[in-house]
């Protein structure tokens, strides 16, 4: 005499089997931190957060180059990031140890760097100090081969200019008297 419930038993075994496979498979395939914060791998957040920085801040440079930092802090260039013209601090120093020389821009490269902000270009706000490079050199009566830093100290662009202006006005005042 066959068991009249044998179909039910088979069905139950198959169902339980399927559920077990799904549960075990899920456990084996999903990463450990899955579902820590939501339906994704929670550890990937920390992995991204731990990625090393390449750019520091101006504070990173100030530790060793306090004199430049001081000069810059009163000038029109006070907002500028040091790493904008030089290179990321990670290419230059680790802690207090310097391991590479910063690419100091000279000659044509330096002019290009200055003009990347100060060349008169359509779209730039009117109030921003802009020059037409060729015209500026002609107007100042200097050679076309002049580089910007021959008149403007790059860290404090108007430092020398204002100094000369002060001297000139002082001289004129003295001459008048």
């Amino acid at each position: 005499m066959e068991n009249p419930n044998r179909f039910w038993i088979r069905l139950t075994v198959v169902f339980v089997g399927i559920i077990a496979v799904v549960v075990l498979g899920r456990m084996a395939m999903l990463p450990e931190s899955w579902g820590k914060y939501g339906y994704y791998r929670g550890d990937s957040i920390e992995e991204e957060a731990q990625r090393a920085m390449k750019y520091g801040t101006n504070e990173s440079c100030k530790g060793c180059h306090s004199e430049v930092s001081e000069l810059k802090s009163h000038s029109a260039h006070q907002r500028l990031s040091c790493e904008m013209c030089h290179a990321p601090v990670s290419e230059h120093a680790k802690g207090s140890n310097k391991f590479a020389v910063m690419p100091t821009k000279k000659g044509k490269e330096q002019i290009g760097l200055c003009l990347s902000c100060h060349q008169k270009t359509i779209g730039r706000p009117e109030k921003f100090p802009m020059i037409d490079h060729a015209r500026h050199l002609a107007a100042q009566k200097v050679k076309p081969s002049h580089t910007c830093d021959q008149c403007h100290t790059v860290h404090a662009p108007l430092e020398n200019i204002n100094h000369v202006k002060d001297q000139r006005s002082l001289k004129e005042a003295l001459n008048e008297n």
Partner: protein
Amino acid sequence: MRTKITQEYIDRDRRSFLDKVFKGTIGGSLMLMIPMHSPLFAEVLNEEKSLKDTIDPMNPNANYCFIVDVSGCIGCGNCCVADRKENDVPEGQYRTWVERYVIDMMNKVYVDAPHGGEKGYSNIPILDTIKEVKEAFFVPKLCNMCDEPSCTQVCPVAATFTTPDGFVLIDKEHCVACGYCVQACPYGVRFINEERKTADKCTWCYHRVRKGKLPACVNACPTGARKFGDLNDKESEVAKIYYSKSRLSVLKKELGNEPQLYYIDLHGEVV
């Protein structure tokens, strides 16, 4: 026997001599390396610590926000350069870029972004097509960090998601580079990274923010046109702008993505 003793004596002597030389060298160089009681040195060390080691705990209460001041952008492209270096973005792909909108007297709008604005702009191609410029401005573009992102909804393997502190990130190990999110993003900020072969996009420099630093582009911007901060911190620059009278707008508001990237005085022509 006698010679052996002498040899031993000589060896010992040489050994102690070398010992002294080594200790002297190491001691001397250590004295050179550690300037005691130097405040400068301590400062550098602290800075280095914050540069590398310390990761702040996640702050789910923060409401991070990015504000771009369109009138402040001069289109120098420094943000793009900094971004490329900070995040190892392959050449020819952009996490952030700067567009230039030029409007002529007939109210026709011309948009250009050569090299994503990374190498700067010149007048030449624009002046060839436009005789008289009525208005022109630069618009930096980056990830909008939507509150209701389209990109995370479509990912078939849950490799992109919103973190508890509100950043939309990509799990680079899980991404299968199907490119669905690239199509879904209405702002076009996503791309398939050619080197890593996964989806990639601007993260608002999540790795810097968690270390208490500003995103690389904000740090690099010479005019302060890019601003980043926590809206819940009432002292932050972004909160002061956000709660002031300045006109803030978002891109493609009608899509309902609710971006957390705001623009000050954005022109209606910008899409």
